[in-house]
């Protein structure tokens, strides 16, 4: 597949801070590519480098077959949807959408037609004469999208475009964005700190940490086969087992990761015996958190680690689960559900893996 964007050795330093540090990246034509990471991980800086708003400290950026590293933003065939939309307040919706065509001297008739088309793509037919301040947040977001799409850029850059919307609208827009992307066939590069959003929409995801890509994979791979404790902790909830605990339970140093929904929680009497395919650990339930569709139980293992277990609330009554606090239980999981992180980072603190979950809640 031809590449839309190719980045080699890209670095951006702000004084002493290495916002982006020696990045290599290839994004395929027509791909929905997400850059995921906490604030300050460098993902937005990469987007601004691609758009041309920042000049790299070193490295090259190639767009299709052209090296665009030294080109200003207006000479690059990419368009951006800004986090705050940046809709021109003094222009009508139609004039906003037509802006890119107007500065490229496209004749008025064609301009009008393509603007209408673009507004239809984002389901805003008939809104052309409105002023931006008459629109809701979700509508403004669509105008920003239409204004970028109308230019039929090679790549569309989206900088956390759904961040300002409420949860329900955001979920709707996620599905819609994905549909629009498939419809127009343009490469989307999407920046977000919301792991769920990235998993929902992307073909591939690059997880950023401190200016570098921690892992680049499909959503399924990223979730099922995280390559580091950071990725395991940032994408979904995860339990980290390492050192003495891992040795006692699993017979190896690890570190290992096990997802909460892969662990079963049973009464001590029903606990199976550990064998080649099943792992078993005893512990005490410290906390039970009811989350609507699922319930999380936090279990302190006798071996010393704390594990989060999640199960679907498929029964109408979940009283039994809630009453389990402070009771002894047995946890079991299949050995092949453990993901080994390869023992590359034995000093990694246990808690680090479970904390970033808060950001997406």
């Amino acid at each position, binding site marked *: 597949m031809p590449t839309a964007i190719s980045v080699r050795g890209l670095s951006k330093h702000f004084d002493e801070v290495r916002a982006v540090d020696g990045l290599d990246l290839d994004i395929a034509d027509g791909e929905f590519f997400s850059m995921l990471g906490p604030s300050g991980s460098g993902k937005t800086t990469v987007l601004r480098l691609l758009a041309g708003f920042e000049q790299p400290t070193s490295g090259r950026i190639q767009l299709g077959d052209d090296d665009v590293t030294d080109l200003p933003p*207006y000479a690059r065939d990419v368009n951006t949807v800004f986090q705050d939309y*940046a*809709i021109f307040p003094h222009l009508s919706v139609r004039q906003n959408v037509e*802006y890119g065509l107007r500065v490229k001297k496209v004749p008025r008739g064609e301009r009008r037609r393509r603007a209408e088309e673009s507004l239809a793509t984002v389901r805003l037919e008939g809104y052309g004469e409105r002023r931006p301040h008459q629109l809701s947040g979700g509508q403004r977001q669509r105008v920003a999208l239409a204004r970028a799409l109308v230019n039929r850029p090679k790549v569309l850059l989206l900088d956390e475009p759904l961040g300002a919307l409420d949860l329900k609208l955001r979920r709707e827009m996620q599905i819609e964005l994905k549909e629009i992307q498939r419809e127009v066939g343009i490469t989307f590069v999407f920046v977000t700190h919301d792991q769920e959003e990235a998993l929902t929409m992307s073909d591939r995801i690059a997880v950023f940490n401190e200016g570098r890509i921690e892992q680049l994979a499909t959503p399924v791979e990223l979730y099922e086969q995280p390559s580091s404790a950071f990725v395991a902790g940032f994408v979904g909830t995860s339990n980290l087992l390492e050192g003495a605990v891992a040795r006692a339970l699993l017979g190896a140093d690890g570190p290992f990761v096990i997802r909460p929904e892969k662990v079963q929680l049973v009464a001590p009497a029903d606990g199976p015996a550990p064998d080649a395919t099943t792992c078993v650990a005893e512990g005490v339930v410290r906390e039970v958190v009811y989350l609507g569709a699922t319930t999380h139980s936090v279990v302190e293992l006798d071996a010393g680690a704390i594990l989060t277990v999640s199960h679907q609330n498929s029964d109408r009554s979940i009283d039994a689960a809630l009453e389990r606090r402070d009771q002894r239980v047995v946890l079991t999981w299949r050995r092949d559900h453990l993901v080994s992180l390869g023992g590359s980072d034995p000093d990694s603190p246990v808690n680090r893996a479970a904390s970033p979950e808060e950001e997406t809640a």
Partner: protein
Amino acid sequence: MRLPVGLRAALTGFTLLVLVVIYTPLLLVVLNSFNADRSFGWPPKKLTLHWWDVAAHSEGARAALWTSLQVAMFATVIALVLGTLAAMALRRTRFFGRNVVSLLIILPIALPGIVTGLALRNAFKTVLGLELSLLTIVIAHATFCIVTVFNNVQARFQRLGGNLEDASMDLGAGPFTTFRLVTLPMLRSALLAGGLLSFGLSFDEIVVTTFTASSQDQTLPIWIFQNLFRPNQAPVVNVVAAVLVVLSAIPIYLAQKLSGGTAKAMTGAR
């Protein structure tokens, strides 16, 4: 907000008192311009349009008005251009001494007019060897007129940030197209407000003008001041003052209406 009845009545009374104190003297000026009595006896025994007729034919008053309008116009144009450019320069670039430059631009409005006037007179006459003329008044006025434009434009930039211009560049517009299609419309109401303020400042300036004007170039405030104590000119001065009251009310009213409307559109879109 709900206020106790007593407090509300007191505030209303106080507000009315302040308004009466401010506007009664102005009203008197307008009324007296129709007073037939040369020494403004009160209450007027007879009303007349005679003084308006005299004023309309007063060569001195007309020439002074024209001079004032010219000075205010040129000073405002210079202020609009330089003030906007200064605000733009200080906006994106971060350099050592940036705050010092900003302070130096704003300082002239705080300096006592007599100091500015004296300093400029010396500079013009001795250092630059310039004859005092309309030009020297315009330059002198521009030094403090720039401040009003600079402040207004800078405040607008701070409120809007730089994303709109980034968006314009991103959509394919070069720096000049971006300035014409995005930056300038964004600044329109700020420029209008700054320009009107600057025009007003220049129009009624008297201290700096005294030091930087030649004896031939009389602005309206200087003409008024010089004719105020000549008994036979006093009624004409009164008419000129009445005209100024009405003339200055119109642009302020317009500015308020205009900037109110655009400010809403500007902020509503964010």
